[in-house]
């Protein structure tokens, strides 16, 4: 069962173990003196003002949405790009049509003001 991903799985396991062992070393060696002042939330050295929740701008969500659409598009383009070496001009034109439709979408979003950080 020769699977490339077994190696990546081992990498995952050991990549997890090494930071954990660093943290464990730190936990064993470091002093533990909890204190309510030390554990209070940091706000430039002052007492916290206002509640601990901030109104999340809707703009973050919009950018994540636009990113999602373009992410799926670029993922579609990967098989096209890999096989491009042995294909005819027609295949290139098809891929270019694919990209052009999505650039039209980007221009539309741009003109509608969706890409502004207001």
């Amino acid at each position: 069962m020769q699977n490339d991903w077994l190696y990546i799985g081992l990498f995952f396991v050991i990549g997890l173990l090494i930071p954990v062992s660093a943290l464990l070393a730190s936990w064993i060696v470091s002093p533990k003196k909890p204190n309510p002042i030390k554990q209070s939330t940091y706000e430039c050295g002052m007492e916290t003002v206002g509640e601990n929740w901030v109104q999340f701008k809707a703009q973050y969500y919009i950018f994540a949405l636009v990113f999602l659409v373009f992410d799926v598009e670029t993922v579609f383009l990967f098989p096209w790009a890999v096989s491009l070496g042995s294909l005819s001009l027609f295949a290139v034109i098809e891929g270019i049509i694919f990209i052009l439709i999505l650039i039209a979408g980007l221009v539309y979003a741009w003109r509608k003001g969706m890409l502004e950080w207001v």
Partner: protein
Amino acid sequence: MTAMQIFFLITGLVILGSALMVVTTRNLIHAALWLIVTLFGVAVLYAILNASFLAVVQVVVYIGAIAILFIFAVMLTRKEMRDRGPQLNTGWWLNAIIALLTFGGLFWMLQGWNGFSKTAADFPSGYDAVGQLGKALISPDAFVLPFEVASVLLLAALVGSVYLAFNRK
């Protein structure tokens, strides 16, 4: 029991367990994180089957985009991250009975299927899966029309999100 079956069973248990945690935990961000574990488990399933492209696409699109979108949506709409309502619906016992009956029916129907003892066939050496996928996506008698329609679908999604988000303009 081959190694592949053991891996599959462990992964399946992880996926089912984290899916259960998604729907039962009270903290919404924890639910999103358990969803990420579920999606990662599915990516591991693809990797076990040697479908490398699908495995990385699963991580890139689902975990890198959709899960982040979920987390943003939760943070955007919820001041209170914990769900204070009752965990069970009224009349939950009827739903449980129906679910068990459906499961029993499916189990009985699948008993005659011989696919459970098959193992995944190995690719012939030198088989370029991604290249074949690429060729299939562009050849006129394979999948070029769904390929182009997919871009139109993505365009529709973009236009729809612009409309929903910027209704007032």
